[in-house]
């Protein structure tokens, strides 16, 4: 990066299936106000706004960033919308980092949201286009065959997916903002109905309303703030085409290349031991094992073994998704930024009940589209 950049404020809404108490504008404003309050700043201090959300058909509102400009405090300021499907929250924050690193802006507000209750995501993500058979039933219908391929390739035992959910739900009990705050047992997961075999109902993320915002600032501005910032050591977005001969859909190259670039530029040579916690995008149970491998935390085929040993649980070697993650809270467009915001809070030492002890370096990750868009950052307590 051309110059150091930090997160100086993080704010998120409480997430639930239906936030009937607020409009979309009210929802984003709630997150923006909390982020500004956290940073000790006001709208006047903000130079530009970068916003992300999942595709417009999720709420049926075209280009909502335009009518939200007022609620975002973006009047007469540069306002940019980022589009990278499910990874959008993370690539939006990374775009805001670029805005500041370039030297063009000192303090940028970045925000991501989804109000799933105002639309029907299952319909929106089940394309019925005229030239292909309409067979994909929601995101689960698209990704379940990838999970089956992972299980077949790695010979993972059937309990790993359900085990991942039990752990995520336990983690969410420590996160006051999480949507699903109810523990489940292994039996409850394995006995829940099969939606897209091999993915069961309880192995699926919820539909949430929610938003998250961050203030990204230059070194000079970050040092003026009231609290210890989270320094952004590196952040990149990568993409690949969906239908390429020989594409590895289980461990996509765009993800591997993206994280390698991030590790190389952040000085990480041994991610398993140098990273203290990670928030990774796990909308369906099996993706936790899959991304552990894709992110280089373990060898290919060993992701499920990490989960089987429990090394990724809270209080263990490398806590994954201490917030409960996407399996417990999924305002789609915001889910990626929640991953990045959560790890910023971890290195600031302000993650609350789910704070990982002594956390200095943390990784935030999101993916989207047909597992083809990736956005990853590493934040640190040290400049």
């Amino acid at each position, binding site marked *: 990066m051309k110059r150091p950049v930090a997160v100086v404020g993080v704010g998120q809404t409480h997430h639930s299936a*239906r936030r*009937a*108490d607020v409009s979309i504008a009210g929802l984003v404003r709630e997150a923006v106000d909390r982020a500004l309050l956290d940073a000790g700043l006001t709208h006047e201090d903000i130079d530009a706004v970068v916003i992300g959300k999942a595709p417009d058909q999720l709420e*049926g509102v075209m280009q909502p960033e335009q009518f939200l400009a007022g609620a975002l405090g973006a009047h007469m300021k540069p306002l940019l919308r980022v589009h990278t499907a499910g990874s959008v929250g993370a690539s939006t924050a990374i775009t805001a980092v670029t805005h500041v690193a370039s030297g063009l802006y000192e303090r940028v507000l970045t925000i991501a949201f989804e109000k799933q*209750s*105002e639309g*029907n995501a*299952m*319909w929106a993500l*089940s394309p*019925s*286009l*005229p*030239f*292909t*058979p*309409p*067979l*994909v*039933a*929601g995101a*689960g*219908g698209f990704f*379940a*065959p*990838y999970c*089956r*391929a992972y299980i*077949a*390739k790695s010979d993972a035992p059937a309990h790993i997916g359900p085990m991942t959910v039990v752990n995520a739900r336990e983690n969410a009990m420590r996160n006051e903002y999480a949507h699903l705050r109810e523990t489940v047992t292994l039996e409850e997961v394995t006995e829940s*109905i*099969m*939606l*897209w*075999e*091999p*993915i069961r109902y309880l192995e699926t993320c919820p539909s949430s309303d929610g938003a998250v915002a961050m203030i990204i600032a230059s070194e000079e501005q970050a040092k003026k703030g009231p609290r210890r910032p989270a320094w952004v050591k590196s952040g990149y977005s990568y993409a690949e*085409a969906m*239908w*390429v*001969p*020989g*594409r*590895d*859909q*289980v461990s996509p190259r765009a993800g591997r290349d993206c994280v390698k670039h991030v590790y190389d530029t952040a000085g990480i040579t041994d991610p398993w031991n140098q990273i203290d916690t990670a928030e990774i995008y796990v909308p369906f149970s099996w993706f936790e094992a899959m991304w552990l491998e894709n992110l280089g935390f373990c060898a290919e085929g060993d992701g499920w073994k990490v989960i089987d040993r429990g090394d990724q649980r809270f209080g263990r070697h490398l806590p994954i998704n201490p917030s409960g993650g996407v399996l417990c809270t999924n305002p789609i467009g915001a889910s990626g930024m929640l991953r990045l915001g959560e790890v910023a809070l971890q290195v600031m030492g302000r993650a609350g009940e789910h704070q990982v002890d002594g956390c200095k370096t943390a990784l935030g990750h999101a993916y989207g589209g047909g597992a083809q868009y990736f956005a990853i950052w590493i934040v640190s307590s040290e400049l």
Partner: protein
Amino acid sequence: MSQPPDEPVKYIESKIHLPYDYVAGDYRALYMRALADKKILGSRCSVTGKVFVPPLMSSPESFAPADELVELSDRGIVTTFCVVNIPVIGREVELPYVAASVALDGADISIFAMVQECKAEDARMGMRVEAVWKPDGERTGDHTDISYFRPTGEPDAPRESYINRL
């Protein structure tokens, strides 16, 4: 007459209808017209020789033109699949159904297809399948010209033929 609601109205459900006209494009139009003649067209990359179905005008891998159209077999293997048990608004597919990635013989990318005449619990990776076409005179040059795929009864393809090819 209905009474006014006791609680303030916070949500109303309102359905919208958004008609779109799609343009198939040159290659896709040829592909669809060929379906009416029980033919599946693909395109071959001029550099790598790999075959794309439905046909692409250039390779997403080599970026070279894929200007040779080739006719593919209507048989292939299931590389991976899921069993769908959840309905989608506006769809009239009977549940459960097997939604599969099918690699047609001679093709280097898979198509998404429904597998029938097979119990969901009998579906498996590596299973050989074939297209079941609509009868002559009923095909219109549309994806529905292939009603579904069904098992051929041939021995399954070996694991190495599909495990890295979804």
